[in-house]
């Protein structure tokens, strides 16, 4: 058929045209410029207003644009001065007086002073404040004990608390405590989140929706100008695509590398960073009813689960085995004497026999994903196998994250015997105070969904909250950890190590235990 001759000619022409186009199209990939760090983020930020956001993803940008009164010392979770140079705490622990750093200005030129600090906290906490409507401020309850903020003079500000509250300083170091320019809030109102102004090492430059947030160096930064000229944060929600961008050189720094992709970054061209953080992954056990009402059975579950296998095989080494309720990242408050429950199925069987709970049926709530939950389905399945191996009869029920929270947070009573959970906190007080006290049972508005109750633990936690001396607090937390480990209200499973990969062009980058991304010392060649 003559159609073929046409096709051949047509193909030739089409082929030539295609090759020509292709040459123009594909040309050498533009290298990312030196001095500009391109960061692969996991999502589009919600807002750049520190009082309005809750996600670590957003904090990664904010920590480079703003400062708080205090901050975490490099590589630790201990507070050190930032915009406050010094502070005193009253004897009864209810008055904090800060001396502010002199000569600091916000990026928009507004001077930083006591009035600015007062404006920030009043905006968040006082419903009658003219700019309270620039919220909502979902984490404002971090400062719910603040009764009043007073500008004593230009560089002195006094916080009065309704009751002693020891985590106050570390909450100030949290992104919710970052300070924004009052003038910028007055100018932009609810749009401040897209026109941010702080005092940090980088100034906001541009936000192209769903493409990039660009920040550039603040040459007048009080703590020394940053090395980089600019940082570009790109939201790349799909982990595979983020990995591909890193491999192709489209980004210089990638956060939250999926465990399965770690092997891609073994070569010289990349540096893999790891840092254990204030995170704990655990199983809530229902101590009110069913088999786990018996302490021996709860301990048996702790012995039965092979946590080494979970962190090494399921999580590919992206986590460490947890020993107790407090993550080791809180070095000052962590009890080094604790040893994790060993993997000992025989011991578990003995305990079960002693408790007469062989063959106990368990309902196990597993989630599909969620903040800090790591790989919950694979972990849940492995845990189920370990529990069944020692004589439990475990049945898994899987829920989507939001639904899961809606089931677990109101308490497990009448529904389940155990549930997966993970927390990331900024102070050793937060998690045990909200999830282990008798006064934190769900009906009292807490997160103690397994109804653990031990008056001794309650007492230690209450005492630690009002103690303003750090050593004294540390001692109380250490005692609490020993008791809680023995009582086993949870199965203590893992502490997540945050990871990141940088290309060989990036220097001086380190991850922080706070999980914040601090870029002021980073160099890119």
């Amino acid at each position: 058929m003559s159609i073929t001759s046409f096709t051949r000619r047509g193909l030739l022409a089409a082929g030539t045209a295609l090759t020509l186009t292709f040459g123009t199209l594909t040309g050498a990939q533009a290298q990312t410029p030196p001095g500009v760090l391109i960061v692969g983020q996991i999502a589009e930020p919600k807002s750049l207003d520190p009082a309005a956001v809750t996600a670590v993803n957003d904090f990664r940008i904010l920590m480079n644009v703003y400062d708080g009164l205090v901050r975490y010392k490099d590589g630790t979770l201990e507070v050190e001065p930032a915009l406050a140079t010094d502070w005193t705490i009253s004897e009864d622990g209810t008055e904090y007086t800060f001396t502010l750093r002199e000569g600091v200005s916000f990026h928009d030129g507004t001077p930083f002073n006591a009035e600015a600090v007062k404006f920030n906290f009043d905006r968040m906490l006082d419903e009658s404040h003219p700019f309270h409507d620039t919220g909502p401020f979902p984490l404002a309850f971090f400062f719910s004990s603040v009764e009043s903020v007073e500008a004593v003079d230009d560089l002195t500000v006094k916080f009065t608390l309704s009751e002693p509250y020891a985590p106050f300083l570390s909450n100030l170091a949290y992104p919710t405590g970052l300070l924004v320019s009052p003038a910028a809030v007055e100018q932009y109102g609810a749009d401040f989140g897209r026109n941010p102004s702080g005092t940090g090492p980088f100034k906001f430059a541009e936000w192209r929706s769903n493409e990039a947030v660009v920040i550039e160096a603040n040459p007048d930064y009080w703590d020394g100008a940053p090395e980089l000229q600019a940082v570009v944060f790109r939201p790349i929600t799909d982990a595979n695509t983020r990995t591909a961008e890193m491999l192709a050189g489209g980004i210089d720094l990638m956060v939250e590398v999926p465990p399965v992709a770690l092997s891609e970054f073994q070569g010289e061209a990349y540096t893999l960073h790891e840092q254990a953080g204030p995170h704990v992954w655990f199983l809530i056990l229902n101590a009110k009813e069913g088999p786990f009402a018996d302490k021996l059975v709860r301990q048996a579950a702790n012995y039965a689960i092979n946590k080494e296998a979970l962190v090494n095989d399921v999580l590919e080494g992206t986590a460490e085995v947890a020993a107790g309720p407090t993550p080791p990242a809180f070095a000052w408050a962590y009890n080094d004497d604790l040893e994790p429950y060993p993997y000992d199925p025989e011991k578990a069987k003995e305990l079960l026999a002693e408790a007469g709970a062989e063959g106990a049926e368990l309902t196990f709530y597993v989630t599909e994903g969620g903040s800090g939950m790591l790989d919950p389905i694979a972990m849940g399945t492995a845990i189920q196998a370990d529990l069944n191996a020692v004589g439990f009869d475990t049945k898994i029920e899987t829920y989507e994250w939001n639904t899961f929270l809606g089931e677990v947070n109101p308490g497990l009573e009448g529904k389940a015997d155990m549930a997966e959970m993970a927390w990331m906190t900024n102070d050793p007080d937060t998690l045990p105070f909200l999830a282990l006290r008798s006064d934190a049972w769900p009906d009292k508005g807490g997160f103690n969904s397994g109804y653990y109750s031990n008056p001794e633990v309650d007492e230690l936690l209450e005492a630690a909250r009002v103690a303003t001396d750090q050593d004294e607090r540390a001692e109380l937390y250490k005692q609490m950890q020993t008791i809680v480990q023995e009582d086993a209200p949870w199965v203590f499973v893992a502490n997540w190590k945050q990871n990141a990969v940088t290309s060989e062009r990036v220097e001086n980058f380190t991850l922080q235990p706070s999980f914040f991304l601090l870029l002021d010392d980073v160099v890119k060649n």
Partner: protein
Amino acid sequence: MTGYILKRLLSAIPVLLGITVIVFAIMALIPGDPATAILGSYATPENVEKLNRDLGLDKPLVQQYFIWLGNMMGGDFGTSFSLNRPVLDEVVERFGATLVLAGTAFVLCSIFGIVAGVISAANQYGWGDKGITFAVLLGISIPSFFLGMMMILIFAVKLKWFPVSGMWPIYGDRDLWALIRHLTLPAIALAVVATGVIARLSRSAMLEVLRQDFIRTARAKGVHERGVIWRHALKAAMVSIIPVLGIQAGFVLSGAVYIEIVFQWPGVGRMLVDAILKRDILLVQGGVVLVAACYVLFNIAVDVAQSLLDPRIKT
């Protein structure tokens, strides 16, 4: 004619109202609320209640529905919780990106699908036909998101011919070339399945036509074979190919969701997936209503066009 168009437009109103009811009901029925999604681990009943109040979600559902509907009539689609910007701005911007991607893919699959189908039919059982049939089956069988990932791996990571993801370069000019460079891989990945379907159906439509008398007449009166195939036969076959194109346009648009996620294309599909996971009620509702309105208007336009072209359709 004007009467017909007016009638069709009026009949769209109950459809759109029905869509608002359904999407509102679905968002109200699925477990989890925006406050829980925002607060995560900190979602105590007390915090959730306060945040829901701040977000205006503490009113009875029926009241919420009518507030939303009333605002929407006035052009106010509300503000997205998760992105903190007006729903309308976000949806319009995202829908534009989807149209660029899906439109390109649609053009690609129409041209390549029809050409492949015609060549296949003209060489029935020949090598060209067998080759195309094999390629088409392969194309139909590969899930588009997998194909997309493989294309990224080969053409972006290994060969570095194209960028991995996104719609525009982070640096450099936002010109047409930059767009084409970013568009090539996702548009091809999205077009492959539809190309296969169109090629198969064009082939059978052509074979049908090629058997008819007027083709024999054309050949008999000495029309060049190329003319017979492309001018006489294809013209007649288009009558049954065009409805297929219409259906495939819908598939391409909905298939864009996967491709947008794999290639991080800032389109409306990816936006809706993110919004559902974050329980961003207003963004999901507004997005669905606007996209549905576009579909409805598109369908009316197609019907009107058809009635103009084909007098047999009663107006």
